[in-house]
């Protein structure tokens, strides 16, 4: 049913360029001061965090700005709803497409990370499905935000109040053990931490623990957000 994915690809440079810059600049710059973190080079530590952040950002952006454009500005969704397609199918399609964007940008970063020698072994390929699941989760959350949005400005609340603090606290740039325990609990209750917990060992050849726990946090967040988003969008469009 979904065909537009094939054609709407040129925004990828933005998705890929920013995390890549973070990785290079912070990795080289900070890396010299920091040395090793948790038994790996700071660059390798950071790379796994940046990969997850990139999955989060790609899916969130697509689920907010692009989806809102199609929902409100271009009325593409209403057009689709004039066919036998239902609201939940539209929402599901958007989630899939946004997660696909996460997958594409993560793949690109992985290639670069491999070239930089930051990948330990072939287990790193499992990062791809994790990136996709992370994409599904954050796309659903973003669509939930979109279902409430009255204009593009609304998305700033979500990025500033949720996404950015989450990225800062979830162990992208430093291990969260150094944070106060209250903050640690908060970080662990958010999905990004769990994505990183899966990706980091896969990338650096470590042992992956609590797979089911981490996966289910991502899936449960995604499912609940997706269902709510679908319901809200139904109410918004079919009125």
């Amino acid at each position, binding site marked *: *049913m979904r*065909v*537009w994915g094939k*054609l*709407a690809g040129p925004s990828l440079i933005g998705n890929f360029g920013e995390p890549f810059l973070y990785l290079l600049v912070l990795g080289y710059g900070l890396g010299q001061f920091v040395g090793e973190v948790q038994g790996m080079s700071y660059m390798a530590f950071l790379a796994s965090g940046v990969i997850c952040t990139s999955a989060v950002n790609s899916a969130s952006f697509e689920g907010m700005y692009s989806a809102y454009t199609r929902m409100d500005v*271009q*009325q*593409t969704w*209403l*057009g*689709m*709803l*004039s*066919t*036998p*397609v*239902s609201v939940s199918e539209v929402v599901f399609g958007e989630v899939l497409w946004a997660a696909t964007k996460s997958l594409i940008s993560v793949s690109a970063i992985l290639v670069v990370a491999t070239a930089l020698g930051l990948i330990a072994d072939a287990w790193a390929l499992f990062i791809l499905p994790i990136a996709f699941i992370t994409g599904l989760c954050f796309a659903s959350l973003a669509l939930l935000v979109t279902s409430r949005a009255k204009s593009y400005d609304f998305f700033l609340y979500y990025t500033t109040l949720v996404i950015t603090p989450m990225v800062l606290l979830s162990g992208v740039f430093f291990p969260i053990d150094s944070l106060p325990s209250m903050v640690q609990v908060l970080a662990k209750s958010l999905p990004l931490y769990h994505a990183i917990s899966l990706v980091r060992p896969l990338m650096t050849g470590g042992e992956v623990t609590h797979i089911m726990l981490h996966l289910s946090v991502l899936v449960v967040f995604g499912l609940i957000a997706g269902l709510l988003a679908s319901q809200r969008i139904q109410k918004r*469009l*079919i*009125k």
Partner: protein
Amino acid sequence: MTVVNSEECIVQTKQLYKAYNGLPVVNKLNLNIETGCFFGILGPNGAGKTTTLRMLIGHCPIDAGELTVLGLSMPENASLIRENIGVVPQMDNLDPDFTVQENLYVYGRFFGLSKTVLKQRIVELLEFASLQDKADCKIAELSGGMRRRLTLARALINKPKLLILDEPTTGLDPQARQAIWQKLRELKKQGLTLILTTHYMEEAERLCDRVMVMDHGLIMADAPPKQLIRDEIETHVLEVHAADDVLIGQLNKDGSIKRFEKSGDISFFYGDKLKHALDILEQGTHDDYLYRPANLEDVFIKLTGRDLRE
């Protein structure tokens, strides 16, 4: 699922009702639209036209009453019904990321049509919409008229039995409008049932077999346009611009004037011959007047009033 003589009536409503914030927008509408009919809905802004159309395609929950489209009840069968309906919305919602051809293709895929079927169909539709040369153009490169024609072509991709058009020619130049009219007549000849809303009386008068005038969610009139003009209003109208009270007083002495209205500085005299009034004007010096047969717009104004709706 109730099946009610689907062969005669493509749309049936019984006491159909919809309210927003307690205000009825569609108020106990009883309507039957027979198959093959070109049906027009007229009404001022906020009369309930678009809401009615949206209910027909399941884009608007029904508060009370019954609605049957193509013999299937709404909203339970919304998806099934939409399989056989084409929709031309008020606002173009073509996908700007795609070319003309891709827009048709993607839309067709939403109906579950196969690639081979679509390939054939797209050629036919581009020809129908006179867009053969534009197949690979982006939407932004199309003129307003071309966009509307593409939207119309897109609505036909599934070979619908019922075509719903919400103000299809609003904002188009006369050439583009006539082109759309011609296409719509062609479709009507092919046996398609069409439902159209419009603010252009001329459009309804020329195209429609049957016209319904709506206001405040109620049916004010429902008949073929010629019959509406015959039954609902006097045969002729005399419009006098910038007439002073003396002149108006003189004109009103004409016994054949049945109705007089003043709107701004235009005086409207409705009647059958108005011979006496015309004589006065011919002999006088006031030459800013127009004597014409009554039309659908006069009916519309009579039924819905002269007040502005915002």
